[in-house]
């Protein structure tokens, strides 16, 4: 293996860690902008099994930022196209595509998973996924990513954690919200999600565990927040 596909990974990670990745399973929920680049990055890292889920098909408006969106893939299921494309990179990653709502098929997505990656594009889905991760027999860590224009955020919810609810639960979802998103933003955020997933699989530390970082590519700032802690309740009788 070291002489082949992943020889240039060695040095950044050890041979033993490379073998750990080969034995790992990651579930990627959402195969669009973030998902496409996350799937690609995890395959090139050498993760052994990817369970990937998206019920959507590629449309023309995906072409500006979604790795596997091409004129040839328009109208096809994103998860199936992603699986095909990974098989063209190398044969060391088994990809299991699922074209259902993730909420309906957790038994297909999480049976042997070590890490879940949130590549969704809506708040309601993110909250449901966070709950599902915490409802598994052994609650699963969730690597969160989100993008908007030149901006993004990345964070890691540990098993049993509440990061996603802390970030999203207070606001109602927006109807028919189609934000502008640039490909460069998607690639940066997806790359950070891959890094965090790799570190989780290898039991490496990260300042983003139960915390999040906000990214501004206009000003080139990457700012890690203070962990979100219990709500303040200032007495309004002042």
């Amino acid at each position: 293996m070291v002489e082949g596909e992943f020889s240039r990974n060695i040095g950044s990670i050890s041979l033993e860690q490379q073998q750990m990745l080969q034995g790992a399973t990651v579930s990627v929920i959402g195969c669009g902008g973030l998902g496409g680049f996350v799937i690609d990055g995890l395959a090139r890292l050498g993760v052994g099994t990817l369970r990937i889920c998206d019920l959507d098909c590629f449309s023309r408006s995906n072409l500006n930022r979604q790795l596997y969106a091409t004129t040839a893939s328009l109208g096809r299921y994103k998860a199936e196209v992603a699986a095909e494309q990974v098989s063209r990179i190398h044969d060391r990653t088994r990809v299991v595509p699922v074209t259902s709502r993730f909420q309906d098929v957790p038994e297909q997505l999480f049976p042997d998973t070590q890490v879940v990656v949130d590549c969704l594009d809506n708040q309601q889905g993110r909250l449901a996924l966070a709950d599902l991760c915490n409802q598994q027999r052994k609650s699963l860590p969730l690597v969160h990513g989100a993008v908007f224009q030149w901006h993004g955020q990345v964070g890691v919810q540990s098993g049993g954690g509440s990061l996603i609810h802390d970030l999203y639960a207070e606001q109602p979802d927006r109807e028919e919200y189609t934000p502008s998103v640039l490909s460069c933003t998607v690639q940066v955020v997806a790359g950070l999600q891959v890094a965090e997933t790799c570190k989780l699989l290898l039991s490496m530390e990260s300042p983003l565990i139960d915390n999040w970082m906000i990214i501004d590519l206009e000003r080139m700032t990457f700012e890690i927040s203070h962990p979100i802690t219990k709500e303040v309740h200032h007495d309004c009788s002042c």
Partner: protein
Amino acid sequence: MKITIKLFAYFRDGRFKKRVSDFFDEGTSPGEVITSLGLDLEDVGVIMVNNRHAAADSCLTEGDVLAVFPRIGGG
């Protein structure tokens, strides 16, 4: 009262990154500060006061540090 306001990501566009303000009265809520800056509360993701999660209708007091993060939700 004197408070410090920190804005993040695109909330800084045409505004500021960090500002100390003595414009607001004791008891003003984060939501009132946010709307006074021309921001839509619907666009706000997380409000923190002194590094702790805070509600838009909570009360600010002298010396508080208010951090306002936009809601970022695309994928």
